[in-house]
Structure formats: C-alpha cells, structure tokens
C-alpha cells in the first residue's frame, strides 16, 4: 500500500508551503483520481512522492509497501516500484528511446537481482507494447521526446509505465494536450496495466473526460494543499456541473 499520512511540504527555494496535510492510502489495483483547481498543489504531490529535490517535506510520512519512501532518493523510489508520468515529459537530445528504455528497465532488473535484458528480448517486448499504443517502430530510434507532439510524449510515458510495470503509478495530468483519439489510446494503455491488478494508480487531472475512460475507484478533491472531499465518480460528475468552488463549498 502507498500510505500518505499528514504530508506537509514546501518549496525549498522560498519555504512557501504547498502541501498542507495530505492523507491518502492507495492499495494495489485501486485507482484514485485527484481533481482540483490550478495551483492547488496536485502536481507538487506527485513530485514530492517521486522525490524531487525542489521540495522539502516538513512533516508527515509516506510508506510504500512498508518502506519509508521519504528516506529514499528519487531513483531508489523508482526502482522500488514508484512511477511518475510527467505532465511535461522532458526532452533528452542525444538519448535514443530504445537505449533509454532498456537502460531504465535494466536498472530495475538489477535492483531485483535479475540479469540485464538483452537487446533482442527487449525489442520484442517494446515493439509489442508500442503496437498497443499505436506507436510505430521508428520511435525507438528517435531522441527521447525531441520533436514529439504532445500526444507522442504522453504515449511514450505510457510505454515506459507498461515496460517498468510499477507497483504504484502517478499520472500527472496525462490527459493534457491530448486529442480525443490520443486520450482514448492512452487511457486504454492505463487500463491494460490496471487489468493486471498489481498496480495502484494516482491520477491527477482537471477534467472528467479522462475518467470516462478510466473509471476510478475513488475521487478526491484537492484544494489549498490538501484533500477536502473524497467519494466516488459522483464527485467528478458534480465538479463537471458545479465547478470546484461549488463542490468545495458544499
């Protein structure tokens, strides 16, 4: 279980408080959606969990299957099974997708005491996943995210998630910048991982439309650095009708 308890965090640069007491428990196989207005701190929650050094955790604790997440570096968290799909995936000029994916996969395999995956096996696995995401083979030779459209970047994030098979995945506004078709393909990618029942999801989004494709088990409303309301899909529907101010005030 990914267990977040009374998490407070601030920007390291100016000590500005962003997270103000977040508590949330995500079990493997569960899908939790976090919705909230701009500036509420949703993306910060993702970054803090992933171990970004721009933030300082002031109080609270987070455990992942019993391990103290906050004591681990970002890379150790990832190898332990945490995955953050970036809202704005970063360009890596000079790093081609194939070697990047294989290096990441083998870093995780090394952590688990497994042999590195050879190129042939890796390519077969990657191509199979890419086909389901509607990605052509030539993606493998391109530099990571360089010259990618918004949709291509998000598909690459989903490809990484599928290959790394995390225990817990945080999807930070994965729906932003996607057209309807791309949204559906990305959502199907998430659903395929979800079907295995071993990954817990934290889906950060502004809009209900992604949740039409990925039906969450829980919906949380995030405002001013903490969760102010929790429930099921009815909350997402209410947000669509009444807006954040209406739901938060109710």
């Amino acid at each position, binding site marked *: 279980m990914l267990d977040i308890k009374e998490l407070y965090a601030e920007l390291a640069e100016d000590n500005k408080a962003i997270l103000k007491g977040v508590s949330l428990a995500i079990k493997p196989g569960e899908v939790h959606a976090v919705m909230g207005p701009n500036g509420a701190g949703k993306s910060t929650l993702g970054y803090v969990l992933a171990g970004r050094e721009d933030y300082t955790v002031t109080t609270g604790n987070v455990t992942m299957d019993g391990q103290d997440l906050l004591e681990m570096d*970002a*890379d150790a968290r990832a190898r332990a099974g945490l995955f953050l799909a970036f809202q704005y995936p970063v360009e890596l000029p000079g790093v081609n997708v194939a070697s990047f994916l294989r290096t990441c996969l083998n870093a995780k395999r090394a952590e688990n005491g497994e042999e590195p995956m050879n190129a042939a096996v890796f390519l077969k696995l990657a191509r199979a996943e890419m086909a389901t995401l509607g990605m052509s083979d030539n993606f493998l030779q391109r530099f990571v995210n360089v010259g990618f459209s918004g949709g291509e970047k998000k598909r690459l994030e989903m490809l990484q998630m599928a290959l*790394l098979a995390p225990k817990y995945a945080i999807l930070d506004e994965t729906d932003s910048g996607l057209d309807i078709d791309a949204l559906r393909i990305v959502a199907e990618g998430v659903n395929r991982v979800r079907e295995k029942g071993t990954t817990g999801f934290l889906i950060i989004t502004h809009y209900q439309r992604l949740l039409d494709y990925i039906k969450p088990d829980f919906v949380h409303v995030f405002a001013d650095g903490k969760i102010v309301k929790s429930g099921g899909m009815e909350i997402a529907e209410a947000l669509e009708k009444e807006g954040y101010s209406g739901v938060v005030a109710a």
Partner: protein
Amino acid sequence: MTMAETLLPAAENPFLDNDLARYLPAPKAETWRMSTVRPLKEAETAEIDRLQDIDIERILPVLQGDVLVMAGGKVTAGMGGVNEGLAASKTGGYAGVSYGYEADKRRRGELTPDKGTLPLAPLGQVADAWRGGEPDRVRVFCDKKCQLLHVVHVLPKRGAPISDLLDIEVADGGELTLIEHFVGLADSTAWMNAARHVRVATGGKLTHGVVQNLPFTALLTLTQGVMMADSADYSLQIIQNGACFARVESDIVCGAEVALDLQAVQHVKTGQTHDVTTRVRFNGPAPRASVTQRNLVEGGGLSVFQGKYHVAQAAQKTDAYMRCENLLLDDRAVVNQKPELEIYADDVKCSHGASTGGLSDEQLFYLKARGLPEEVARGLLVEAFMAAGRERMHDLMKEAT
C-alpha cells in the same frame, strides 16, 4: 659527416638550443586569440623516433575503406602492411581518387619562416631537414564520386615540430569523403605541426573529417587553407578528444553559391586546451553556411570557439550562422568563445548564438524518476551531449562505404 649535418650545419640549427619560443608567434601577434601557444614552447625538440620499428597496428583505429598512413609526417611502409604499394610507387588510388606523395625538399634558403602565424610549416621543414629526412607532401586528387579515404597521422614519442603536409583537391564532378585520424604512441610528447591545402572546384563536393584522439601529453596545430570555387560543397566535421594542446584553424574562402557546413565537438578535460578557430570569407552569395560547435568541458580544461564571417559586398543574400553550445561539468571548466561578423553587404542574414550551462536538473530528475542512479543519469546526459557530433561522423563513414 651525417646526413643531418650535410643538410644543416649544427651552427645554423635553429633547434640546437631547444628554444622553440624564438620561432613561435609572438604574444603580440596572438592577442586576438582565445588560447595561448605557451604549451608549444615547452615541447621537446628531440629527434623523431623511428616509427618503422613500431607495431603500428596496435594504435591504428579499425577502419573500413582505403587507408593511408603518415607516420611522423612521412608515408611509411612496413607498418602492418599499410602503404606497401604506395610506398613503392609513390602513387596509389582507386576508382575516382588518386593520391601520391613526394618529399618536400625545399631547403632552408628557400624557406621564409613566418613567426607571425601557425602553422610553422617552414620551421617544421627546417627541423625535419636537420633530422635528416624531409616531410612528405601527400596530394589527394578526386574527380569522380568515390569511396571513403582515411588518412591516419601517427605521432611518434618525441619531436617538435613535426611537419605533416596534405593537399586535397576535388575537381568538378568529384565527390570525396576523407577522414583524418590523429593518433600517437602512448605518452607521446611530440608536437605535430600540420598544414592542409584544400581546393574544391565548381561542382565538387568534399566531406572532410578530423578525428583527434592523440595521447593527453601530445600537441597538435592543424592549420588549413580552403578554397571553395562557385557552387562548391565543403563540410568539415571535427572531433577532438586528446592532446594537451590542440588548435584546429581554418581559413576558408568561398565563391558564390557554395554550401559550407563546419561542425566541431570537443571533450576537454583537466590540463587540456582545445581550440577551433575558423575564418570564412564570403566573396559571393552563400545561401547555406553554418559553423556549429559543441564543447564538453570538465576540470580545469579550456575550450575555445572562435569564428569569424567576413561577408564581402558582392556576397548579397548570404545566409550564414554560427552557434556554440557548451556543457560545463564543474566550476573549474572554462570556455572562451568569440564569434565575429564583419559584413559589407546590405542584404544578408548572418547570426551567431551560444549557450553555456551545466547539466539540466529537469533532465536529471526525469532520468532518476525512471530509476537511474545519479552517476548513470549524468553519464547518459554527457554522452548524449556528445552523441550528435559523433553520430554524424559515424554516418559519414557509413554513407561513404
């Protein structure tokens, strides 16, 4: 009486006192430069090693295509079988390209040492004459589309300055990829003082590579004059890794409608100075011209980017840019860059730009968030920064074979 004494009496030997400084460009003549020739002054002027006795295969890169080896500035036979035919007949070649060489026998009286500029070709020749052997001037001529030619320059253990002379001519209809490799014996403290004359005729295309992998103790000055006729196509790709001091300097004169592309990649570490200096004179419209450089610098290394475009009044509609990207891995790394534009035409597009910084925190976090340890992530980003230049060289070799 030895051969060397015949050629140059000891009393007139300029290197007897081992004082190269007297012959190097004066500091005043170098004030415009961003690197200093001080390391050259300290180069040893000892006798050149006998490279024939060395197992050259151990240091030659593995290459596909025709290979010509110049060791210590001479075309030398008997090194693992390379050059056998060429050394015997003084000519060689294959479909579309021919090459030949002859000893440059000019004597001291015919030479006018130029203390103001590098290369010190005359000075080098005097030194070589004193040592009892003239440098070979290799000429490569191409008038058809032809295969890749590698020229490997081997630096001996000691000797300074060692002349290394190569003339390249690509005639109308000629298309040549020529890649020069600079390698040296381990711990070489020698200084190679190389000069190039390059001519690309109308309709000719030359793709020219320079791969400098000298030992960290060696020195290189490579100075070339390039003449591009109207509609000529010349691209130069430079990769510098080794040598404690390496300056690659090009003077390029362009006719009208030329295509010019110069790319350099330098990895500079503690104790090294790498300098790429380029001056381009556009005498006619040049719609496609670029000079770009990438510098990866660490420790107390110094990397230099110096470029100048001179656009003559007749060179209207010229479109040329210069760009330099620098990745500094620590606080002691230094980059000196000086782009210059001197424009006498009023309808041109010329620009220059530079970026300098360390590794991106965003990129590092992205990689760490995928499970890569800090040192692996840093290594991947550093390698990626250099990859663009290296891949282009790889592509050149692939395309040409």
